[in-house]
């Protein structure tokens, strides 16, 4: 770098050859990165690419195994958040680090005064917080209890925490993952104000359009290595996506196929309401072999009830459910599994896996009591391990091995294991509830490809998604769900996105033709 360039834009942060291992996983492999004053650098990469690890090293949550960090020209001691804070680095974590029992103001104040100071100086601090909130467009009420705030508000508190400590460099880890589109716009406005005041921002994301919208420069990580660095103005989605996953991404191919026999039918089925979540109201549905039925709808409109019904967690209170033509006698999760219904649950952390179990144990969660994993009441762990190893190989689960605790895996790899567990037994019916939520491009393409393969094999698939594009891209036929009611069945491409959107908002249901 020449002296002239240096004067024009000072480098505020320099990471040099950062390397970090977790056991056998190389999370960061000699990553180097520089950030200039008043610049937004996007750190782009798939889940598990090492973005968060890199930033945790910068902030001092982890110490790097090798490498060096310089902030404003001074070396930063490793593994010490306090030093990072004092050097002017602030971090907004993906999982908020807020104490819910404290007020907004107290959360911001935490750790800002010497512990032995006689008082908190709340009045002066409050004035400063209010001023900062006004300057950067971060609407918060200092007295509110953090536990009662929305996710968007909590994020604003996190940003204020950093600003209150005079952060000059702000790291945002997947800040938009939890925000509505409007909140995302507000966040971007705040970031622009910060940059205008000379702050620098590292924006971690795997969403291409956001990266293109907010950053000056994009740095791409893949498998812990820095694979590319481009000016945002000189790149586009396709190039970034290519760098991120290592090859040009293409949508999985979808061949037309003739639907087969009905494997599962619902006739005027209703289920009980669960608190604020509506049950089904007289739903008619048919899942046929070799067909993907897409279920579009705004979240909380009875998708959960339908998924629970198919998974055996709930029984109809009215109407009739038939499996391959016969009504099941007793309906339970076990009966559903026996009937060949495979489930990809909506929340892979809460209901899909047990975090502290190994991959092997998670792989046989549904089948542990059957041969070959269990014989005469004794577990056969060798068979279980072999099975897990097979899933890992066939479904491209990136992990140190079958004995790894599953909590150490990224969301995408966790989902691949769940997918493998569900698909391995060649199920006749597949319930895929939000199968790609929170996944990156590569993993999404993989999951979709596997669902299409199952369809080609003759499985009947119910795809529940809040992403209308996903539903329209994969489905053979589409239903819209609204307040527990199902729309009539629409053929693929029969309705435009706008028309389906109207159904999702309740239009079309008003005619009463499908009312309960």
């Amino acid at each position, binding site marked *: 770098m020449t002296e002239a360039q240096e004067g024009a834009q000072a480098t505020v942060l320099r990471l040099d050859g950062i390397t970090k291992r977790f056991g056998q996983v190389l999370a960061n492999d000699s990553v180097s990165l520089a950030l200039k004053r008043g610049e937004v650098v996007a750190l782009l990469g798939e889940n598990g690419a090492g973005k968060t690890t890199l930033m945790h090293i910068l902030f001092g*949550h982890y110490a790097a195994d090798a490498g060096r960090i310089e902030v404003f020209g001074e070396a930063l001691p490793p593994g010490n958040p306090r030093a990072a804070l004092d050097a002017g680095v602030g*971090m907004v974590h993906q999982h908020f*680090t807020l104490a*819910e029992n*404290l007020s907004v103001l107290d959360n911001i104040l935490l750790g800002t005064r010497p*512990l032995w*100071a006689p008082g*908190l100086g709340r009045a002066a601090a409050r004035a400063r917080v209010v001023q900062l909130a006004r300057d950067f467009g971060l609407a918060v009420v200092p007295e509110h209890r953090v536990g009662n705030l929305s996710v968007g508000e909590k994020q604003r508190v996190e940003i204020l*925490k950093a600003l209150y400590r005079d952060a000059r460099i702000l790291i945002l880890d997947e800040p938009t993952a939890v925000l509505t589109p409007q909140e995302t716009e507000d966040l971007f406005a705040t970031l622009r104000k910060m940059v205008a005041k000379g702050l620098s921002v590292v924006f971690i994301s795997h969403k291409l359009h956001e990266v293109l919208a907010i950053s000056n420069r994009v740095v791409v990580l893949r498998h812990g290595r820095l694979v590319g660095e481009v000016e945002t103005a000189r790149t586009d989605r396709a190039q970034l996506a290519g760098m991120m996953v290592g090859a040009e991404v293409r949508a999985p191919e979808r061949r037309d196929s003739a639907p087969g026999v009905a494997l599962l039918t619902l006739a005027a089925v209703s289920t009980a309401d669960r608190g604020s979540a509506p049950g089904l109201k007289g739903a008619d549905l048919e899942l046929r072999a070799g067909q993907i039925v897409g279920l579009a709808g705004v979240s909380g409109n009875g998708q959960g009830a339908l998924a629970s019904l198919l998974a055996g967690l709930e029984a109809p209170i009215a109407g009739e459910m038939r499996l391959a033509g016969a009504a099941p006698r007793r309906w339970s999760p076990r009966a559903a599994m026996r009937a060949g219904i495979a489930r990809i649950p909506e929340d892979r952390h809460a209901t899909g896996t047990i975090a502290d179990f190994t991959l092997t144990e998670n792989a046989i969660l549904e089948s542990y009591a059957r041969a070959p994993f269990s014989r005469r009441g004794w577990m056969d762990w060798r068979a279980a391990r072999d099975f897990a190893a097979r899933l890992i190989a066939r479904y491209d689960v990136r992990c140190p091995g079958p004995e790894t605790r599953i909590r150490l895996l990224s969301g995408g790899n966790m989902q691949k294991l769940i997918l493998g567990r569900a698909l391995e037994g060649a199920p006749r019916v597949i319930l895929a509830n939000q199968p790609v939520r929170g996944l990156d491009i590569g993993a999404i393409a993989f999951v979709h490809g596997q669902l299409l393969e199952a369809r080609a094999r003759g499985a009947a698939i119910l795809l529940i998604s809040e992403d209308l594009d996903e539903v329209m891209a994969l489905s053979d036929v589409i239903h819209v769900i609204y307040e527990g009611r199902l729309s009539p069945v629409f053929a693929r491409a029969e309705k435009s996105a706008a028309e389906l959107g109207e159904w999702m908002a309740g239009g079309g249901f008003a005619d009463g033709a499908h009312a309960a």
Partner: protein
Amino acid sequence: MAEILDILLSASFWAAVIRIASPLIFATMGELICERAGVLNLGIEGIMVAGAFAGWMAVYSGLGLWTGVAVAMGAGMLFGLLHGTLTVPFGLSQHVVGLGITLLATAVAYFAYRLALPRVTTPPRIEAFQPLPVPYLSDLPIVGPALFTQTPLTYLAFALVGVVSLVLYRTPLGLAVRAAGENPAAVESQGLSVTAIRMGAVMVGSGLMAVGGAFLTMSAFNSFFFEMVNGRGWICIALVVFGAWMPGKALLGAVLFGIFDAFQIRLQQTALGADIPYQVFLMLPFLLSILALVVMSRRAAVPAALMTPYSKGER
């Protein structure tokens, strides 16, 4: 009925209430500090025994009363150090460590007692704290003898509640303690050490528990004997829940328990006591406490990270 009214209106009854509540207040404040920082300290029962012995032994061997209190506090803090080391940096199960500390501290106290006084059958008495009437206030009817003719340790117990409240809610230190019990990640990301805060809280808390124990030997019974703590530590665990982890409410709980206990003692001496076995009366305060606990702790806000060990950099 008239008898019950007589009991409730007598100054000696209320003086007993306060006397019974005092050791509970010390130990409850200690437990509350530990739990607010995220550590359940089940060592409380044993630490109270150790404190009762240490304070008493110090005075018996010729040290001053206040030095005795300090010795008890120090003994408690040592057990706190052990508890904290095992549960905070090593992250061991707080239940197991706590019960272990209770067994250890109790056994160590009894053992030391036998070593020091191998041939004694009746425990020797010490010159304990004497009631210190507060000028003017102690002359008030009922309230005077009940509240203001107590020993200095009782006054200290009540003052402690105010101090704990002030520190918890009005100082950076208290803020850090409360945050450590709610979300340790918040503490770390603000540049503070979760380990240091939790260790400190457990040590100070354990020290206060020991002073609670010392109250029994130095301000109530004036000598040390086996089984004297008699489950008071466990009561304090419940009082923290009863008080919803708030010092003021916990104080209320301690006084309430004192009322139940003092009341049953006096009830035994009435006509009722002739007909009903005394064990029923002994049960009374515990039954009423459970009832009060059920009613009061319905919506208590448990520190979210209570009993969750924190290890830096864990995913």
